[in-house]
């Protein structure tokens, strides 16, 4: 059939759909997002524009000249030198070499590197090595250089950390104990993030990226916001980006509030507000991908949530457009056709300030 358009499922499998099927998927996707996130649906013009992007003939697509945005990333050094489990190519070059290659050979707008074990807790133990590398790398690069790490509250629970694991306590009905444990762990996490941030700021850190925030729920997000607050007060010149783990803050604690607002259950537009209030400079929303739904469904959903966030956010919005988030299929080798289509839709219709 001539009107069949090639696209993919949320797990990356290539499929073909008719124009009417794609339009239907887009409509259902935006409705789903609007209902869940309590945000406006995309207009029919918006949906038509996404349809045009999906049905473009070329393998890759791009925004028109003048519409380009800023690309930030979660550890560009990793794409060269990290292992495949982290999407890396295991090239035998150092992190500094990778950052320089990214700046000069790939013309990135911003740069980023982090520790192999990309969380704040493991960074604490080797902070001198990280500050030294940051210091020298920042002297030989021109584009803004971020240092990135994940809050990753999970590391503070047993068996890795010192606090009782809420995932053990909750099924036993020990709600009060689970809450207390999360509060204590969040405090320790905040201290570690402030310690790492302070050390980096003192050697001239230009940007700190709190990546995959709230992966362990509302207590994780709370610790992040408190750390941002403290760091921004002490080091106003260090820009802070907060990228989220998911579209929805899990209420593992359930009663934690920040500036009077309950964190559990927050969708991207409210998350952006909380990050901006804490002093964050750039917000990175993440919208989950449903692998059993089509790419059109997933991208319509992602654009719906991102568009509203961009409209209400007072700080720049850089959606996380990685594997399994914001429309990009959940596949280790992410298909470039979907990646570029997701990018274009999020920028042109989602009005993102960056990615």
């Amino acid at each position, binding site marked *: 059939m001539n009107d069949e358009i090639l696209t993919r499922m949320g797990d990356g499998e290539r499929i073909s759909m008719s124009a009417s099927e794609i339009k239907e998927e887009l409509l259902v996707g935006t409705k789903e997002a609007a209902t869940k996130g309590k945000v406006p649906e995309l207009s029919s013009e918006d949906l038509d524009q996404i349809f045009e992007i999906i049905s473009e003939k070329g393998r890759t697509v791009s925004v028109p000249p003048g519409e380009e945005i800023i690309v930030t990333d979660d550890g560009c050094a990793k794409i060269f*030198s*990290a*292992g*495949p*489990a*982290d999407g*890396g190519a*295991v*090239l*035998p*070059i*150092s*992190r*500094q*070499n990778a950052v320089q290659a990214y700046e000069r050979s790939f013309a990135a707008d911003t740069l980023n590197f982090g*520790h*192999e*074990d990309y969380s704040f807790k*493991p960074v604490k*133990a*080797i902070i001198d*090595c990280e500050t*030294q*590398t940051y210091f*020298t790398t920042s002297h030989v690069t021109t584009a803004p250089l971020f240092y990135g790490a994940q809050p990753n509250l999970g590391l503070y629970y*047993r*068996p*890795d*950390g*010192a606090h009782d694991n809420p995932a053990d306590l909750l099924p036993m009905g020990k709600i009060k104990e689970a809450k207390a444990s999360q509060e204590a762990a969040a405090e*320790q996490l905040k201290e570690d993030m402030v310690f790492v941030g302070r050390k980096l700021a003192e050697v001239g850190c230009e940007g700190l990226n709190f990546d995959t925030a709230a992966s362990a729920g509302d207590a994780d997000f709370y610790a992040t916001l408190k750390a941002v607050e403290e760091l921004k007060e002490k080091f106003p010149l260090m820009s802070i980006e907060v990228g989220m783990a998911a579209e929805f803050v899990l209420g593992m604690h359930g009663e934690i509030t920040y500036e009077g607002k309950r964190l559990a259950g927050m969708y991207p537009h409210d998350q952006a507000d909380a990050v901006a209030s804490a002093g964050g400079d750039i917000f990175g929303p993440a919208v989950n991908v449903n692998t059993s739904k089509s790419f059109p469904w997933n991208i319509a959903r992602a654009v719906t949530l991102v568009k509203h966030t961009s409209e209400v956010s007072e700080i720049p919005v850089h959606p996380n457009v990685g594997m399994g988030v914001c429309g990009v299929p959940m596949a280790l080798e992410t298909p470039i056709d979907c990646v570029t289509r997701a990018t274009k839709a999020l920028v042109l219709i989602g009005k993102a300030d960056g990615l």
Partner: protein
Amino acid sequence: MSKYTSRMGDGFSIELTESEIRKDIEDGMESAVKHGKVEPLTDTEIDHLLEIFKSPDKVVGVERGKEVILTYDSGTTKFKRVNVSVSKIQSLQIYERILGADTLELAHIDYSFKPVKPIVVFEQPILEQALLMTIPPLFYGAMPNLGLYSQPDGPFPNPGDLLPKGEIKEARASYDRQIELAVKDMVYVGSHMYEAGADGINFDTTAAAGDAEFYAALKAVEILKSKYPDICIQMGMASEFVLGMHGELYYDGVRLAGLYPQKQMEIAAKAGVSIFGITTNIVTNETLPWNIARAVTFTKSCTESDSIPVHACVGMGVGGVPLTLAPPVDALTRASKALVEIGRLDGL
């Protein structure tokens, strides 16, 4: 009376007469004999040591034919720590082709088994590629570092908090649980790296947290050796004396607390260790002749017995090398020569 330039244990330069050097050598040796209950050096050996310290040359070396094998702790991280911008594989190539290394060691910057666990899948492809392009035996190294298993970093109550309160039973119970997790992590990492093709695993700075850590490392070695009979395991110690933080741990009927190098080596060999790394501490307010004589006396006690190869840890603050961030090469090469020629090492 002519004077000879030497150093203190903290690296400061001093001048000593021949009789002062001889006296310090004898006193250092006595200290080892007294603490480790080991045999003293012979007069010929003392004279040999004296000659090493009297040498006017800045750098000294072993006699031709007496060269030994060099193994390295924390191999690749040495480059990263001093911020030389090369990858791990490049570091190994530099060791192999620039430094003429006899063996190589790949390591994670956070040099303990516990932090390696979450990134072991990143280490495997690096090891695999390094193995394709290097020639000498390649170890994977990390420290048992039991300290990471107690609060605030780890899950169990910190014996450092419990012991001062007299909560001995609770502290021991905590150690017992820490051992369980540490053994699991060491076996996990060791297995993954051996499966990826490593020639051996280096358990470095073993027993830093005392007898419980030593016990955990021995257990892990035992398991790895039974899983992989051909695996080479090197075990380097944290110090000359196993601290009795637990106090009641036994391996093969031998109490681990208070063991000195010779006994440490015997126990390690029983567990399946292939190369033993003896460590002797430095006393910073004693002289280099005192410290090296002491280290040599301890070392000889290990190498005299017919046992596994012995590689001394001869780094900053151990094996007679002064405790200073930039160890002077005159002191370092004297420690190297003395330990090999008189201590009869198989490597260092």
